[in-house]
């Protein structure tokens, strides 16, 4: 086996160390992607997706080159390994890979234009005094115009550093926003439990319950309510799962105001100002930007 020395480059991810911490970025990957698509000289935009976009599959849409669309989306998906800021936008465009239209292609180009604004943006892992695991979940109810399914997302932090995140369209139709949120919470718990077990193998243990921040009071209420309620009787499995973890004091659900809900950017479009302030809290910086 060959020792390649200090970790610098791994599967297209660049690793850099500094006094501040360790940063992960896909700077070269972004630049290659931009030059391949001829977007190196494009005009940058502030956010990866348009506010209140109404993207969907319409019967009268103008089809576009499917192979090209799929290749581009595939490349963007790989990029989400370090770019939590484009996760939601990529999850939206990847819902149309079987029938892409010109409009969908324009949404992909918008992501590329956003990337042009800060190609070297990546995650920064900082040493600090925080010693816990935390998560944020959020859901956007019935957003899909054709199927009315909801989108949910979560973020997980270990010792204040962003570790994993996801945005995905839910598999079932939720009848209320609380129900969508509730299902998202169950997803978030699964991820946090997995992180806990990885850390256990490394002999890092946290005794306090893991905090999973949620901005829906109704969903928190349902989680705590031991009674099988008339309006929640159809969400049985997730309810028992969540209740059990609560009773074992593995997890707790503090309420977080929508304004400080970091998982917002994984489930919906937000304004330029909110987008920037949330992305900053992810610990994302552009180490290649001139300061």
């Amino acid at each position, binding site marked *: 086996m060959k020792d390649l020395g200090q970790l610098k480059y791994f*599967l297209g991810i660049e690793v850099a160390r500094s006094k501040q911490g360790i940063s992960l970025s896909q700077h070269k990957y972004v630049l290659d992607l931009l030059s391949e698509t001829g977007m190196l000289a494009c005009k940058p935009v502030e956010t990866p997706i348009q506010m209140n976009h109404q993207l969907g599959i319409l019967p009268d849409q103008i089809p576009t080159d499917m192979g090209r669309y799929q290749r581009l989306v595939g490349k963007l998906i790989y990029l989400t390994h370090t770019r939590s800021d484009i996760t939601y936008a990529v999850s939206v465009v990847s819902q149309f890979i079987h029938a892409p239209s010109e409009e969908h292609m324009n949404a992909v180009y918008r992501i590329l234009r956003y990337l042009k604004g800060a190609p070297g943006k990546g995650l920064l892992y900082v040493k600090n005094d925080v010693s816990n695991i935390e998560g944020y979940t959020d859901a956007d109810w019935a957003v899909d115009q054709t199927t009315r399914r909801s989108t949910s997302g979560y973020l997980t932090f270990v010792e204040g550093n962003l570790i994993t995140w996801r945005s995905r369209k839910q598999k079932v139709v939720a009848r209320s926003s609380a129900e969508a949120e509730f299902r998202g919470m169950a997803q978030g718990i699964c991820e946090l439990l997995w992180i806990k077990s990885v850390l256990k193998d490394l002999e890092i243990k946290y005794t306090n319950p893991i905090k999973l921040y949620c901005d829906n009071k109704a969903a928190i209420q349902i989680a705590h309510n031991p009674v099988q309620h008339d309006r929640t009787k159809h969400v049985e499995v997730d309810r028992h799962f969540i209740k059990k973890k609560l009773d074992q004091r593995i997890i707790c659900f503090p309420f977080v105001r929508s304004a400080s809900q970091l998982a917002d950017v994984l489930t919906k479009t937000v304004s330029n100002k909110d987008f920037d302030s949330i992305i900053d809290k992810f610990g994302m910086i552009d180490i290649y930007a001139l300061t």
Partner: protein
Amino acid sequence: MELPPGIKQSFEHEGRVCKLKRALYGLKQSPRAWFGRFTLAMKTTGYQQSNADHTLFVKHKGGKVTALIVYVDDMILTGDDPEEIRTL
């Protein structure tokens, strides 16, 4: 599968097959065989395979920890025990 050059002469009759006793390049089973062998080698050097992620191997020695993670043929080795990292 085609017979490697040089072997063909010894098979006088058509329709014979070879029984492989070991893994071979290019077979669809070979990555799995490689990983199985790798896992075994790691376990004999005192590493434990993590249950949460099967490509993560961890070794604890004297309060220090060394972790190795594999992706296909790329590996990252890290930890707070420089001696262990040097000797592996």
